[in-house]
């Protein structure tokens, strides 16, 4: 597999994992008590930022090749 291919595979894997976590976190929001809901929302924001960073890093890497 080429370096670009490996990077893409890695991005796909990370997106799958992180988006999967977000989906699961949403289902927990419904029943979580207030303190836990706050914690979940904080972690979800962090995850969304991480996804955006991963995509930006991939775009930057693709542009530099």
């Amino acid at each position: 597999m080429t370096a670009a291919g490996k990077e893409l595979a890695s991005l796909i894997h990370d997106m799958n994992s992180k988006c999967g976590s977000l989906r699961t976190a949403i289902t927990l929001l419904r029943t979580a008590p207030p303190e836990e809901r706050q914690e979940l929302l904080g972690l979800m924001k962090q995850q969304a930022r991480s996804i955006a960073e991963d995509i930006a890093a991939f775009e930057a890497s693709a542009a530099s090749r």
Partner: protein
Amino acid sequence: MLGFVTMPKLSILVVEDDPLARKIMESHLGGHSVEFAPDKRTALEALAARSHDLCFIDLKLGKNDDCSGLELIPVAASKGSYSVVMSGHDSEPYIDKAYELGCNDFYAKGNEADNIGRVLDRFQRKRDQLETGRLFAEEFVTDDAATRASVLEALRYAVSDLPILLLGPSGTGKTSLAQIIHERSGRDGQFVAINCAAQSEDLLEVELFGCRKGAFTGANSDRKGKLLLADKGTLFLDEVGSMSLKMQSKLLKAIEEKSFYPVGSEKPETAAFRVVTATLEDVQSLIKAGKMRFDFFQRIHGLAVTLKPLAQRKCDIFPLIGFFTRGGKRLSFTTEAKAEILRHDWPGNIRELRRFIDLLVAGNEGRVSFETIAGLLKSMRVEEGAGSFVTDEQFRFALGQGLDEAVDRFIDTIIKRALAKNEGHKTKTLADLKISTRLLYSSLKRFREDAKPEATS
């Protein structure tokens, strides 16, 4: 918090670098003792320091990580942990690699609610299978399906507070089963046993409730009773059928209120114990005869488990012989010797078989013949009868219930056994025992036995 609190509390390690994923796992594993490791180094430290029932392992641990989670699988497996790989990598090469390295389970991330539940169920089923095999090979040796079912039924409730009543003749393993129940109860306290038939009523009261110094002549110091010793543990009352009504009443109060007064004390003690009882007697007959309080019976009888006599589970004889001789001198038996062992009824059940094997091993080598077996069984019968027609158990029963009751019990047991041997035929039973019809029917009335209709008059 979500959790699977119906199963025993498990020790779980979760190796996951994603904080949100860790939070999700925490929510779905509520009720268990969960440790988190965000990277491979922390995970290896945790695996080295402690044992875990399960390890959930994310394959990719961190940005640019090359599935270092795979390296943790054999480490977890070597520690006896049930390893579960959870990954966004659900392609076949990764799944194959994970199983090759020894992982027990694998799921693709994204549906934790269902996946974690299924994983825990599979883990528990596998553990139950291994446990059952070990249980019946090493702790309560039996190949008999009905006995296994009875034992497993009792152990289903081991972790609860449900009082358990163990029924069955002497020497069938009631005390062993009570101990196993306690060991699996998860209770922090001790297993405290007392034979209720072995004491007079006054002594039994002191044994159970303890006493204060000076409470009676001979009480030279304060003494803790069995109830206090069993605090947070299990109190096993053997031969509970021989307990007097007065003692039943006192004990009932102590069980219900978890509080009691030692003999001679005005200050109550408290103790939270789980009650397991045992008796060889017919409890319904005791209640009917007014020898056992119905409220006491209800309090000790959350679940009743009956252990069959060895004569009704002869498939256990040779597995038990193998168990008793494990690690020591092993004997082999001729076909005729085996047949003679199986022919014997073993009225003393497992206790008698154990004694028989101890004597056999001590006095014999190599291949054991029919003559050796027959001779030893005969000498054991003579020895048990020598100097006394009455066993210790019968004597204790008479002390506890009175001689009339003991004689009735003796008569009923002999008649019941003769009827079983004669397949319910009363005429043959009358002839064998040389008794009157009146005696037979009064015994049957006591036991409400349904003998087979007579084939011939």
